[in-house]
């Protein structure tokens, strides 16, 4: 047992920290620090900077243009990104589809799509959920019927995050109604410019149009866009979910959120003194910080077991529950910290390019929105209830 990084790992950490200092554009990190949204262009700019350094695909093997880092290096990278207030890497192409194509895609698909993910030519979105298929993902009904060398796709996806930015969508579609639900699902790559696709925004509780409904009306998709074998999509879908759950603990994001909370609690006044000196509030902060310290080590214990390029198993369900609960508690405490200034609805101050003067202290504007928006963390990617079922089945064997 040794909790310290090795010499090489320390050198790697320095290299990443220096990179962040030199290459992360200040207008971008300022927005992230203040909890403001980043538009499509901001993400693309940051992806391009990372790609140039070879850091964009931290979890891909070298042969596909990835960084080829091991789990500890990836952890260090995530950590340094959060500390520097770098935007998150948009996961749909890099953490989700990439690993699936590497494991199950054809040589042609790998050669065509993977470089386009790295270069930013393609922005992917995830077409899993449907109105009737949420937690029960295997109930997807969007159908793909083979006609000659095409599939004809009909149906509806929903909750599609940032679908408004995407030019491509990977979908779970039903190709067979025989047998078990899981045995009739295929994994299909769809160009969103194809006729018959319509994207409609869904406004979330904090006022942001972050997700979408995507409708398919007789959409013609070339048969070569099928990943792997027909009716084997469920296997690939689950493989993707385990990758989606890497870095699910969000230690870096919570560390940054804790730092922000403490900064705010030092600036807020309570009874003529800084709020952070209020013993009740300080105790609340201390409780989450203690959780976060332990979670950080739980996270390292889990990720260091996973081999390079691999995702952790059912243990990632524990990380997801703890990670989201800690993050949500930090968001709730930050909301409490700003007192009456949680009340103004400040949507326009959050938009990119807005010069609207904030109401109250500048750190207050994004706080209430973030609290509500991050309730999603315990719902998507397999709700926390579903994660608990996975733990009790797969780990506890109940």
């Amino acid at each position, binding site marked *: 047992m040794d909790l310290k990084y090795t010499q090489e790992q320390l050198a790697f950490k320095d290299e990443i920290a220096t990179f962040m200092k030199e290459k992360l554009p200040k207008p971008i990190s300022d927005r992230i620090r203040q909890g403001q949204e980043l538009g499509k262009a901001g993400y693309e700019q940051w992806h391009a900077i990372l790609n140039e350094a070879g850091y964009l695909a931290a979890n891909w093997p070298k042969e596909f243009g990835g960084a080829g880092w091991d789990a500890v290096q990836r952890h260090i990278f995530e950590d340094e990104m959060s500390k520097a207030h770098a935007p998150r890497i948009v996961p749909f192409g890099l953490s989700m589809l990439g690993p699936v194509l590497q494991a199950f895609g054809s040589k042609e698909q790998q050669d065509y799509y993977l470089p386009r993910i790295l270069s930013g030519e393609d922005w992917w979105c995830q077409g899993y*959920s449907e109105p*009737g298929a*949420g*937690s*029960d993902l295997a*109930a997807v009904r969007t159908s793909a019927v083979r006609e000659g060398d095409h599939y004809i796709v009909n149906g509806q996806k*929903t*909750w599609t995050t940032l679908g408004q930015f995407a030019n491509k969508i990977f979908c779970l579609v039903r190709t067979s109604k025989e047998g078990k639900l899981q045995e009739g699902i295929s994994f299909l790559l769809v160009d969103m410019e194809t006729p018959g696709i319509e994207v409609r925004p*869904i*406004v*979330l*509780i904090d*006022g942001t149009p972050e*997700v979408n409904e995507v409708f398919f009306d007789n959409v013609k998709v070339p048969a070569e866009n099928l990943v792997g074998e027909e009716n084997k999509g469920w296997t690939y879908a689950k493989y993707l979910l385990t990758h989606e759950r890497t870095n699910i603990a969000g230690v870096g994001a919570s560390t940054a959120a804790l730092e922000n909370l403490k900064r705010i609690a030092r600036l*807020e*006044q*309570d*009874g*003529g003194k800084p*709020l952070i000196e*209020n013993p*009740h*509030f300080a105790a*609340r902060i201390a409780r989450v910080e203690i959780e976060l310290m332990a979670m950080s080590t739980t996270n390292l214990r889990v990720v260091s077991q996973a081999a390079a390029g691999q995702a952790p198993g059912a243990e990632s369900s524990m990380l997801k529950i703890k990670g989201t609960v800690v993050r*949500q508690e930090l968001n*709730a405490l930050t*909301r*409490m910290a700003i*007192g*009456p*200034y*949680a*009340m*103004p*609805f*400040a949507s326009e101050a959050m938009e990119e390019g807005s010069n609207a003067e904030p*109401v*109250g202290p500048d750190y207050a504007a994004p706080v*209430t929105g973030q*609290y*509500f928006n991050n*309730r*999603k963390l*315990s*719902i*998507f990617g397999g*709700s*926390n*209830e579903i994660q*608990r079922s996975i733990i009790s089945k797969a780990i506890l064997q109940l």
Partner: protein
Amino acid sequence: MNFDLTDERQMLQDGLRRLLADSYTPDARKAIEAGDNGFSPDIWNSLAEMGVIGALFGEDDGGFAGAGFDVALVFEELGRVGAVDPLIDTAVLGGGLVAALGDAQQKELVEGVIGGGVQLAFAHVEPTSRYDLSRVDATAEKAGEGYEITGRKAVVVNAPAANHLLVTARTSGKASAENGISLFLVAADAAGLRLRNYPLVGGGQASEVVLDKVPATLVGPEGGAYEAIAAVNARAVLAISAEALGLMEAIKELTIDYLKTRKQFGVPIGKFQVLQHRMSDVALEVEQARSAVINLAGHVDAAPEVRDVHVSATKNLIGTVARQVVEESIQMHGGIGMTNEYELGHLAKRLTMVDHRFGDADHHLERFIALAVA
């Protein structure tokens, strides 16, 4: 001991529930959000006509009820439909303060409030006063017949629509002293008064208020307004707690309904035991919230040391339960609970904001410790 409503209150509840059901459709609320006032003048007038505003005042003040249980009844009904009308600001706070401290001429304003023609706002909270009721930095100085106020007020709910502001300012004493706080009436169009208006999370509007030598008339004794402010604040805590209870009941019903109708894995999700148990917890905490509101309603006009124990106990419990109800109901809805369009979004936001007015759960925990534990 009797927990039933009197006949008069039962009638008021039935009438108000019908009125709100007819007028407070989700579409009507969306129209309100898009409008300039933060509320609907039509609904406001019907509330006045039905006597709902009058029910918040005692007979001495021109009303016809005004006990704690009347206040609780009215605000629970408003909460059930997620109403955004500024009844707390215009009636409980504004009207309440003028009724408590005003002279005969000033009290004509209360008549206007009860009739529905006057809007008021209480400009008391300041940018760094947080939930501290006696922390006032704004100052007032004598100028001829009246006074002039200089200072800043924060998140003044309903200021954009108010005809008059009730402004607190210090005429003596240091920033946190109870003595030395005076109450003033300021006309909305007074010289030197600047408002920056904005919408609130969960509905309604507010302003950041800057006062630069604004002419003002004293209401009540110079330097001696604190006692009345604390008494009116207690009624506002009762009102917002009862509103929170109504919001909780509405959210509870919506969530139970959803658990019965949403199917996953071939069954209604309400068949999953983990959700049954969590919904049961929510239901029992909402009963606790109801009891806390009853406790405060029964003591809101008691002597300050008794009253304030109940103010803090109730507001602490309401704040704690509100968070649980909001977070659990969103979670049990899944994705649909995250949307703006679905009814839950508005109710959940409004319920969450209850903790940010008149002291949050922690603030009242500390006050309760000071008053009842330590």
